[in-house]
């Protein structure tokens, strides 16, 4: 028995060694590939991979830039999750925003891409510009603070007062009750982003003959066509769009910070990233801020995996 096991082990290591040798030879042959990839790989590791690793490391330390980092184990996480009420508000708000604007924005992106797909060519290109413009217009969204101004001269307030729905102007960005809904409205306005472009392009690439085969097989209306033909052939774009949407909806902070102020009343518009900003760049508690970043990163990874496996089932 013992001998047999040893034999297996030996065989295993032999195989390993062989594989390594093959890989080494392959690497030597494709030396040029590494030379081509090197500049990007080095910079990418430096500015994207290493920061994530460093961030995880610092999240276990107390670090305020002036003193060297001091290892404190899980303390950062413990105080984040158990003692920091404001962080819990942040998590709650981020989740609310992500759950509402994420799926809605994603569906909107696909819906509009799909609807404009059948328009004549030039109308379609105008429509793409119109729908995509809000997300590349920089911080044009601050114009919403004019529409939702807190006094009776704001557009929305005056309209609602004229209609007799409200008597007093609503302080949209100061009253905790209204902050999040208005921000979500603004985020939705900007949600037709990169994913939308990918959908528009993907829809153009769906094989026409598939549709014709579909008519023969008795596809009755556009909804059936959508579910049985269009969606399954768009799967790769749907995945890409999902990644983009998740990124966007979990990293909300610019909109809430610009519109509701920083800090906002009762921290009602605080998101995870706002909290990270607060600790990282106002209080310089880098270790703590890194713990926040790590939690955010983990949340995005989990959601991303869940969504991807959900999307694999589309159209089946």
């Amino acid at each position: 028995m013992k001998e047999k096991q040893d034999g297996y082990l030996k065989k295993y290591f032999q195989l390993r060694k062989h594989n390594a040798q093959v890989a080494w030879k392959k690497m030597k042959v494709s030396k040029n590939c590494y030379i081509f990839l090197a500049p990007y790989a080095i910079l990418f590791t430096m500015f994207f991979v290493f920061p994530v690793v460093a961030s995880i490391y610092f999240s276990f330390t107390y670090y305020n830039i002036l003193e060297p980092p001091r290892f404190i184990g899980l303390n950062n996480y413990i105080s984040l999750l158990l003692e920091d009420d404001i962080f819990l508000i942040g998590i709650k708000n981020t989740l609310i925003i992500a759950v509402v604007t994420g799926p809605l924005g994603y569906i909107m992106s696909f819906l509009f891409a799909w609807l404009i797909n059948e328009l004549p060519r030039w109308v379609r290109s105008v429509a793409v510009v119109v729908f995509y413009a809000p997300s590349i217009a920089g911080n044009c969204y601050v114009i919403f603070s004019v529409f939702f101004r807190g006094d009776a001269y704001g557009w929305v307030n005056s309209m609602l007062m004229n209609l007799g729905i409200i008597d007093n102007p609503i302080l949209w960005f100061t009253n905790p009750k209204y902050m999040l809904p208005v921000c979500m409205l603004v985020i939705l306005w900007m949600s037709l982003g990169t994913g939308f472009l990918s959908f528009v392009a993907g829809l153009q690439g769906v094989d026409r003959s598939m549709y014709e085969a579909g008519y023969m097989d008795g596809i009755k209306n556009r909804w059936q066509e959508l579910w049985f033909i269009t969606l399954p052939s768009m799967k790769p774009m749907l995945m890409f769009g999902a990644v983009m949407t998740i990124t966007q909806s979990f990293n909300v902070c610019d909109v809430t910070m610009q519109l509701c102020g920083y800090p906002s009343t009762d921290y009602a518009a605080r998101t995870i990233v706002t909290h990270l900003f607060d600790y990282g760049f106002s209080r310089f508690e880098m270790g703590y801020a890194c713990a926040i970043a790590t939690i955010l990163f983990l949340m995005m990874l989990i959601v991303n995996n869940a969504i991807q496996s959900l999307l694999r089932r589309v159209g089946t």
Partner: protein
Amino acid sequence: MSKKRKKELEEKPYHKPLVKRRKPNRSIAGDIALYFFLVLVALIMVFPIVYAVSSALKPLDELFMFPPRIFPRNPTINNFTDLFVTLGKSWVTFSRYLFNTVFMTAVGTAGHLIIASMGAFVLAKYDFPGGKAFFKIVTLAMMFTGYVTAIPNYMIINKLGWIDTYWAIIIPAFASPMGLFLMKQFMEGLPTSLIEAAKIDGANEWKVFFQIVMPNVKPAWMTLIIFSVQGLWNNRASTFIYSEEKKTLVFALGQISLGGIARTGQAAAVLVVVMIVPIIIFIFSESQILETMASSGLKD
């Protein structure tokens, strides 16, 4: 057939049908309802942007008029000229801010284009150990926005001594994962035979890359450029750059719009200046971008 009709047919043997053949499974009522819906949504989408542009064109008295008007009665470009005056009076001139932003945007985008394309080329066309794993990490990295990595990034740039230089903004922009991803996906569509033919003719990898591959992926260039420009143009860079003469245009403009009620008109002009550049680039390169995005799908 009448003589006239016959003559017409001889002159134009093929004429386009006025109404395109409709798909057989569509109802007219549905089409009309959809068009109506689309127009409505499109109006909602453009309204804030149109309003931003029109408030930039309003004279001061109209800006505070109530009820507000969507279009200015006497449009003026005073807000824009005032912007120049205000910036002209600051001790760093407007042209310097503009230069900073344009310089960072141009260098960052050019470097990103070259470096990301080189990486994308080998990832798309060669099979080498580690290539697939590396690409997986890149796709994962598309999920990090600047915020998650902001703090360690600051430390790294500090260690490199790049704080308060242009490089703090430019070099990280080289490695943006989005560009590499889109480029690689697009390059996979290039026929491998093209590269092999060039190799048989005696071209080495560099020649293949610069003379065969790059000219053939021009649509993807435009896409990389717009994503990179969009990021760099809107970069406030306030965490990395402290000296006034190196600050970006967006930062300077932001300072102006903080100037209170009297600067309302200028603030509106600022919004327009900042948003107009990415939108114009997008309008001119739309078809190329869409061509690139067609290959953007994530396969498992």
